[in-house]
Structures are given as structure tokens and as C-alpha cells.
């Protein structure tokens, strides 16, 4: 028997009240935990996915959509750009390097990207097995693709026309005529590349059967999307977007303007669009943060009221303890211990709930999956959150603890 056991006995006897206090705290902590996890990962993804890409050029449309579709691979692309524009950009003196992206097909919901080996270098992705693709029939797949589809090196599959841009795989026309062969599997990077199927730009053209020599003089409508391109028996080599790195910081000033002045082209800065996106999300996150704060405030108030009323009920017990020779600090310690235990339980449960909710969120939404969000991640901020909750739990216990300190021991004999 000691103050631990005594405290546990009090908590157990008031199980319903204790459960309520713990639950309220846990909800507040869980909300804030989800916010921390989400905010951190969005920030992190935004930073890591855009690193090394100074500009993305796509077909006319929303720059945000271009970034979402070509960098984060969540949205549908805005359309295609023709090879005259591509060549112009590749040879531009302000441009240091380019990576083409061509998309339009998918396999079991995973995008097939026509590109060059430089994309693999851009992701700093290592091969886990096999080789990088060669020729027009081979692909190299991300770790998540391999895990989800069970594709192994040497397997072949047919792509489906249409890309997964939102929820779940697209059921489109099956390209029976064109087999892809898995040449290699990449190491898991915890980034979007895990969920991509990479092949050559030509392979994507091959699938659609319109590998034609580009007609330099053809006044092609650059703005149309891939779907149309497939139908109108496209007359030109087209790609969906071009990732660009600058030769000098000066390029940031002039190149986007030059790109945008060419008909059908749209330049999008990953850094700008990502911070704009996070700014947009920020409003929602702030509302959620406020909600979590209000919950936590209510929980602390509940804790205070619970301790306060418990102490009134236990006045006699406390007098008895004092009469038996227990010093005041034991009484104060008991109250603080009770507050700490409730806070600790609430905080731990809240952290666990937060991670669970984040994991469900990451698993339940295609966009979250595509951005490789996860609940299986620990942040140092969670430790601060835990300590903070313990701290405010102690603060809530200050007045009840002072009451316990003030209980007059002499009244034990005379008061009923």
C-alpha cells in the first residue's frame, strides 16, 4: 500500500469519470497529433519531391495542376506539349537539364511514366533487383508497385489506357497488343517514385500506335489532352511535361515568362505552387488546430472539475490520512499523481489514436496513398505534446492540491 495504490484505487472507483477525462484528453491530443503528422509530411513531401526541379513545363492550364500531376502524380495532367517546344527547351541556354514525362496509361492504378533514366537519378533511387529499362518494352517499377501487384522481374503485363488521378484504378481500354516486361524493381524511397512504373517515352507512344515522324510545320493544337491525342492519330511526338533545372538562378526571372509566351505552354514553379498549396491547406489545418485546442481546453477543465469535486468527497479520507500521520506532501503528491496519471493515459491514448487515424487517412484516400503519407512515423513534437499535456494536467491539479494541503488535521476528531 502506498500513494500509487491509493491513487489507482480512487481512479478505479471513479472509473466512469476517469474514463471520460481520459477520453476527452485523448481526443484533443489525437487531433493535434494528426495535425502534426499531416503537416510535417506535407511539408516534407513538398520539399523532397520538388528538390532539384526548378520548373515544370506542361500544356496550358493551371500551374498547380501541372505540379500536382507531374511532381506529386496525384492530379490529371493538363494536356501534352509537342516536340518542337521540348527541343526548344532542351537547347535553351538557361536550361541545365531536362527530364521528359509522358503519361496516359496505368496498371492496376499505378501510373506508367514514359521518361528517361535521368528520372531515376533525380529520385536517387537504387535498383533493388534487375535493371533499368531498355528499349520500348521494358519498364522498371517502384517498390510499392511491386508489393501491391506482385510483379516480379521478367513478368509481363498489359497497360490500361487512362491514368489514376483520383480514387482507385481506372478501367479503360486494355492495350492487348502491347506487353510491358518488368526489367527491374527500385528500392523503397518513401516517395512517389515507389508508386510509379517507369519506361521509355517511346514505349508510351508505341502503345498508342502513333509513332510518327514529327511534322515540323504542322500547326498542332498543343492544348488538347492525351485522350484526344490518342484518337486523332497524333501527328507529333508529344510528352506530358518536362522537368527542368536551371543553369543559373537568373533563369528563374526570365525563363517562366519566355515559356508562357509560347502558345500552348505553361510554366509552373514547384516551390511556388507547393507553398501555395500548403497555404490553401493551412486554413483547414488551422481550423483543425483550433478544434484540437478547444478539445484540449475542455479536457483540462474537465480534469480540474473532476479533481476538485473528488477532493471535496475525499476530505474525510484526507483528514484520516493526516490523523494517521501522513504528512501534507503525501496528500499533495496524491492529488498531483492522480492528475499526472490521467494526463499520461490521455496523452498516450491520444497519440496512439492520432497515429491510427493518420494511418487510416493515409490508407483510405488515393491522394494520400499517392503521396506516400503514413501514420507510422514518430515526431519529436509528439514528445513535446506529451510533456505539454502532463504540464497542463499538473496546472489543472494546482488548486485541488492546494486544497489538500490546507485540510486541517485537527478537524479529524471533531468533524463528521
Amino acid at each position, binding site marked *: *500500500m*502506498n500513494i500509487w*495504490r*491509493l491513487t489507482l*484505487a*480512487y481512479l*478505479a*472507483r471513479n472509473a466512469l469519470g476517469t474514463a471520460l477525462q481520459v477520453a476527452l484528453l485523448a481526443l484533443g491530443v489525437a487531433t493535434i497529433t494528426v495535425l502534426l503528422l499531416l503537416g510535417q509530411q506535407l511539408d516534407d513531401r513538398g520539399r523532397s519531391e520538388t528538390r532539384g526541379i526548378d520548373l515544370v513545363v506542361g500544356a496550358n492550364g493551371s500551374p498547380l495542376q501541372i505540379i500536382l500531376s507531374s511532381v506529386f502524380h496525384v492530379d490529371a495532367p493538363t494536356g501534352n506539349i509537342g516536340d518542337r517546344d521540348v527541343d526548344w527547351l532542351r537547347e535553351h541556354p538557361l536550361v541545365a537539364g531536362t527530364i521528359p514525362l509522358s503519361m496516359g496509361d496505368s496498371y492496376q492504378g499505378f501510373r506508367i511514366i514514359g521518361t528517361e533514366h535521368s528520372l531515376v537519378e533525380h529520385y536517387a533511387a537504387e535498383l533493388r533487383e534487375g535493371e533499368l529499362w531498355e528499349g520500348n518494352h521494358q519498364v522498371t517499377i517502384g517498390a510499392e508497385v511491386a508489393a501491391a501487384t506482385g510483379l516480379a522481374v521478367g513478368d509481363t503485363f498489359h497497360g490500361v489506357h487512362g491514368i489514376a488521378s483520383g480514387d482507385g484504378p481506372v478501367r479503360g481500354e486494355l492495350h492487348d497488343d502491347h506487353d510491358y516486361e518488368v526489367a527491374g524493381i527500385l528500392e523503397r524511397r518513401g516517395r512517389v517514385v515507389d508508386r510509379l512504373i517507369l519506361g521509355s517515352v517511346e514505349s508510351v507512344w508505341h502503345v498508342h500506335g502513333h509513332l510518327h515522324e514529327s511534322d515540323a510545320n504542322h500547326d498542332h493544337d498543343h492544348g488538347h489532352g492525351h485522350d484526344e491525342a490518342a484518337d486523332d492519330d497524333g501527328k507529333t511526338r508529344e510528352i506530358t511535361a518536362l522537368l527542368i533545372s536551371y543553369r543559373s538562378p537568373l533563369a528563374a526571372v526570365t525563363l517562366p515568362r519566355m515559356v508562357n509566351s509560347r502558345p500552348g505552354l505553361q510554366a509552373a514553379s514547384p516551390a511556388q505552387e507547393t507553398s501555395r498549396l500548403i497555404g490553401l491547406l493551412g486554413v483547414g489545418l488551422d481550423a483543425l488546430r483550433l478544434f484540437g485546442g478547444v478539445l484540449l481546453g475542455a479536457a483540462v477543465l474537465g480534469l480540474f472539475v473532476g479533481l476538485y469535486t473528488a477532493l471535496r468527497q475525499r476530505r*474525510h*479520507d484526507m*483528514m*484520516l*490520512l*493526516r*490523523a*494517521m*500521520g*501522513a*504528512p*501534507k506532501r*503525501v496528500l499533495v503528491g496524491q492529488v498531483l499523481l492522480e492528475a499526472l496519471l490521467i494526463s499520461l493515459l490521455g496523452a498516450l491514448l491520444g497519440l496512439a489514436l492520432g497515429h491510427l487515424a493518420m494511418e487510416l487517412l493515409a490508407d483510405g484516400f488515393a491522394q494520400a496513398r499517392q503521396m506516400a503519407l503514413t501514420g507510422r512515423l514518430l515526431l519529436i513534437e509528439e514528445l513535446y505534446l506529451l510533456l505539454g499535456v502532463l504540464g497542463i494536467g499538473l496546472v489543472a491539479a494546482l488548486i485541488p492540491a492546494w486544497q489538500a494541503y490546507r485540510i486541517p*488535521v*485537527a478537524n*479529524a*476528531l*471533531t*468533524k*463528521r
Partner: protein
Amino acid sequence: MSEILAFHGVQKQYPDRPVIRFPDWRLAAGNHGLVLGPSGCGKSTLLALAGGLLTPERGTIDLNGETISGLTEGERDRRRARLVGLVFQTLHLVSALSIANNLALAQYTAGQPIDRQRIRHLLAAMGLESMTNRMPETLSQGQAQRIAIARALVTRPKLILADEPTSALDDASAKRTASLLLEQAGTCGASLLIATHDHRLRGIFPTVLELEPEPA
């Protein structure tokens, strides 16, 4: 023979109340005493002073040969925890704990190791073993009081202070409680000091201290 308790010129005054003057008296170790007097004369106050729950404005109180009236509250707490067992009229047990754990709590506050065997033996010796694992709210007032006596004894105190332990009981129960107290105090060699206005106990005790009625 040494004294367990001695009062010298003790005066206590509650705020805005007349001064209560206590006669000089002493209780030899192992002897039992009875404090009698009408309601309001200061019996409970005397026990509180003896147990170090209160300090007097004047005079000295010696407990087990040591003057406790000048000690700090914490020091008095420690003396009380070690030397004194208290039995109250109505305030008996911590409601969240079982009977056995109430006794264990007394050992804890006395700074003693928890001795489950001692608890079992004591309850058995007092015919209370069937209540070992019950909760206080399931006991009758009389049963709870007997458990409170066991709780006061479990730490082997030198002095047991009991305030009105029999006033609420019928003649038979009052006699049984008084003899239980005497018997158990005897087995652990403790002195017993009972404060009461219950004259039924008068014949049983060798030392009787009669307090004057409170001045009007």
C-alpha cells in the same frame, strides 16, 4: 515508571472562543485513562493536543518522554505516525480501499513495511477475518468502528486515543467495544485514552480525568 503522556499548564484557545484550561495530569506507560466531561468542555481538544494534531498556546505536552508541544507540524506528524493510534467517533475508514488495505495504509503512513500477515492475524484475533476483503461501505457502523480499532492497533502504537468510541452504541455494544479496546491495547502494550461523556465506561478505567464544563 515512565509516562506516555503528561500535560503541564496547557491552555488552548480557538479564535474568538474562551481559553480552555486543562488540569495538569499524567498517564503512566501501559496505563489506561478516561477523559470525562460534558459536551463542549474540551475532551476532543485534549485528544487532539495529545496526538499532536493541535498545539497549545501555553504549557507543554510530553508524549513518550518528549515534549511535542514545541515541534513543527511535520515533526508532530512523524511522532503521531509512529506512536499514536487514533479511533474516531464517526470517521473510520478510507472508502476506496478494502478493509485489509485500510490497515495496510496505516502501516504505510507509519513508515512501516506492509505486513499482510500481521493484518490477517490482528483481524483474526479480533474476530473480523471475514471482513478482510470487504469494502467499508458494506459494513455497519459498529463493524466499521471495530475495523477502525484494528487499524489504530496495526502499527503497534504506544498510545491509543479514542474519541467517543461508544457513545453511539447500545449498552451491550458499548461494553463489547470498550473491552475490545482494553484487551487489544493490553496485548500490544499500549496505553489507552478514551474521551467520552459516556458514564457507562467509568467503572472500567483506573485513571479518570474529569474536565470542568466550559465557562459560560
